[in-house]
């Protein structure tokens, strides 16, 4: 049996209490919400802390609120709730879809949006037992000095594997973070850094309170696509969100956000394609763009070169779904 090492569980009832606990125990502390990522990582001794602060009883972290301009989602809102919420389905369908594709029904009943954003990076050399990792001499993320993915590499390249992050970035989401020093806001697009040992730019003293997403205009279309070996349970092996802003029937802007590469999502803007017509040529152009500028690594399962080709396929299908074309046309290049 995989057992958790002893820890002290704090269950604060107010934000003030929570942020004080975090400040007091940082860096030897984590926030626990659903626990579906943190607890396995603790069981495998990948995360070693002796204090946990529960988000369960913090009212500010729960619920989905719709205003005239924004949708505000509490960080401890469940993934199932998020995937089925009528406002999210209506206004942010790609986010609802991304949430519906995370892991399994049981995990969506437990896991939360904040937990998915803070999901630890994944790599075939870290998501292993401690014994396995030690036998290999460790790695940059696990008491070692060598990277087994990039020979000679000095920075950990474990993969961001959060399904919700690409669509949150495509929608222009902003997170609200609380600490004992007050509140701060940060766009999700700037929340990640190129360091797989801890890729989320949220300090250990900080608590993710909520995510605010501007309600997109009817001219904005966003799609998320995930590819993994199984339809359920798996983390994404290819993870892309495509945003197309349309004006007068042609492209006016947008972005492609690619996850499951290294620790940071790749954000490509579509300025060079402004004015393009919404057709198969656009799908091909975006596919070529991600092929040239986003590169999967041999850090997570499945051949990296296959995932690179697959990423192109998923981007093309995303574009087609957004411009009213069949996702898989009967051509050799489907």
């Amino acid at each position: 049996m995989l057992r958790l090492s002893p820890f002290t569980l704090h269950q604060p009832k107010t934000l003030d209490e929570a942020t004080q606990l975090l400040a007091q125990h940082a860096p030897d502390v984590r926030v626990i919400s659903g626990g579906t990522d943190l607890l396995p990582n603790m069981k495998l001794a990948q995360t070693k802390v002796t204090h946990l602060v529960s988000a369960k009883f913090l009212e500010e972290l729960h619920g989905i609120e719709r205003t005239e301009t924004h949708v505000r989602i509490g960080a401890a809102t469940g993934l199932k709730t998020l995937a089925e919420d009528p406002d999210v389905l209506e206004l942010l369908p790609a986010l609802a879809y991304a949430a519906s594709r995370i892991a399994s029904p049981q995990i969506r009943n437990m896991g939360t949006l904040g937990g998915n954003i803070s999901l630890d990076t994944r790599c075939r050399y870290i998501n292993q037992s401690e014994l396995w990792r030690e036998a290999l001499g460790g790695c940059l993320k696990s008491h070692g000095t060598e990277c087994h993915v990039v020979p000679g590499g000095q920075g950990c390249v474990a993969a961001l594997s959060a399904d919700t992050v690409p669509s949150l970035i495509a929608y222009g989401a902003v997170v609200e973070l609380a600490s004992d020093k007050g509140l701060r806001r940060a766009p999700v697009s700037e929340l990640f850094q190129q360091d797989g040992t801890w890729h989320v730019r949220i300090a250990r003293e900080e608590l993710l309170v909520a995510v605010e997403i501007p309600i997109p205009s009817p001219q904005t279309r966003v799609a998320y696509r995930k590819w993994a070996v199984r339809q359920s349970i798996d983390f994404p092996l290819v993870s892309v969100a495509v945003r197309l802003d349309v004006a007068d029937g042609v492209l006016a802007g947008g972005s492609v956000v690619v996850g499951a590469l290294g620790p940071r999502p790749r954000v490509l803007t579509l300025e060079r394609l402004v004015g393009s017509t919404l057709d198969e040529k656009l799908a091909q152009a975006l596919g070529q763009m991600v092929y040239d500028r986003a590169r999967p690594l041999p850090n997570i399962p499945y051949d990296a070169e296959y995932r690179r080709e697959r990423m192109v396929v998923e981007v093309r299908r995303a574009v087609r779904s957004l411009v009213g074309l069949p996702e898989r046309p009967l051509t050799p290049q489907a």
Partner: protein
Amino acid sequence: MSSSDLNAPAPVLVNLQLNGEATSVAVPPHWTLLELLRYGLGQTGTKQGCDKGDCGTCTVRIDGEPQLACLTLAVDVRDRSVETIEGLGTGGEPHPLQEAFARLGAAQCGFCTPGMLMSATAYVDDLTLQDNPQVKRDDIAAALAGNLCRCTGYTKILDAVEEVAHSVLNRQRELAESTAEDE
């Protein structure tokens, strides 16, 4: 108990409804619900598989929702209702799903069966004529998508759940018709 438990924070008292019965138990804060069920309460019907959220064999229902006992802290079920396979049926009086699983060969080695049944009961209990006028095999597969089986290839499991789902909806339909006749 491992030696590391000697330095563990003191156990805390947790009150919960376990299979409908009020239960009070002292549990170390770093124990999972799975450890509490199997080693604290001797209820070994809930199986320990991967122990890290991949396989679903430890699935129990917490306030009716299928969740994973291996990734739930035992203290987090305080004041909540937990249903396990022990509460489902007995050898003499099996739950209709258990009866269908046995008759249709949906259990082979049986290790995934308790978790499979907890996900299946959640699906069947949520069926309503309004939302699910037709039983869809895809819906059943989606409801069981967090439970791995390495023996059956899933076909017979889906058959068993489908059969019970049909009988549940038929009963609701009959009830609705007889109520309509009464009026």
